[in-house]
């Protein structure tokens, strides 16, 4: 077993997401170079984890911009909903009117046909 064969696995071992097989473990436990690499990765990952506690303060105004953007989006949504509702009402009205017209036409045609049949007889 050589160092370069286990090197790729060392960060995973340090963060607990990987385990070495017996051969690799024996190598690392007897290899000071790999042990040093483990120490370096341990320090690196610890330092990265510590960055989690830091926050970067944005310059003033960001909160206002976010909230204004949300308000604008909310208003657009309401407007879109209202327009969609109105469109549905128009289409519904048109459909009802068309259906009524068609029914009237059929009724008239039927009456007219009966009238012609009556005259012929």
């Amino acid at each position, binding site marked *: 077993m050589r160092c370069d064969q286990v090197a790729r696995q060392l960060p995973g071992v340090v963060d*607990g997401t990987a385990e070495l097989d017996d051969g690799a473990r024996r190598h690392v*436990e*007897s290899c000071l*170079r790999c042990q040093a690499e483990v120490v370096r990765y341990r320090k690196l990952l610890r*330092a990265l984890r510590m960055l989690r*506690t830091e926050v970067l303060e944005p310059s003033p105004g*960001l909160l206002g911009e976010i909230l204004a953007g*949300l308000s604008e989006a909310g208003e657009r949504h309401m407007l879109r909903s209202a327009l969609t509702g109105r469109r549905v009402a128009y289409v519904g009205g048109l459909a009802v009117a068309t259906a009524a017209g068609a029914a009237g036409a059929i009724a008239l045609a039927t009456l007219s046909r009966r009238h012609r049949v009556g005259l012929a007889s």
Partner: protein
Amino acid sequence: MPTRLVSEDVTPATPAESEGPPTDALGALVTQARTGDRAAFDELVRRTYVDSYTLAFRLVGNEEDARDVVQEAYLRAFRGLKHFRGDAQFSTWLYRITANCASTQLTRRARHRHEELPEEAPLADRSGRGDPEGSADIGELRDRLRVALAELPPRLRAVVVLRDIYDLSHDAIATELGISESAAKVRLHRARRKLRERLYPPGTDGTQRGAEARAV
């Protein structure tokens, strides 16, 4: 004496250990916001936007883009809140949205400005300071780490920031960055290796010298 391989120092943070506003308070606000309570959502924004901005800045590397990313992230969160199932923390859900927006922003920026660093850009140590262990100065290590992170190519930086600082799963990272899980793991390995090389350049590493000296 052989070193025993343990992960005692760097186990992933549990939700209770992670930073940010208290989860219970956010949970109550999330519940209210999901019923359409806009004031509750605004309060969620107030409590989390600095944290979101910090993540966005770390991912995109400049203030202007970070502000755009955060604004877009909250708009998406607002529209998608009804789909938030509550099986993850709200902050984790927001990190994922922020990461997705940042990824989109980076793609857009690369397309328009052609300024993305090549993936194999060398990370030479230009500071002349090579032995952070010798200095035992954790503040200095963090400063150097920040610089090293900023110098990473964006595609590698995103993965290491999301995994090693914000503790997102490989699966979540892959989904939000639009890459496969195996690609996310490869990028993480490369990012960690570059950071390690940047912070502990060959020939200047006290740990290695010491270990090898003890081996002789």
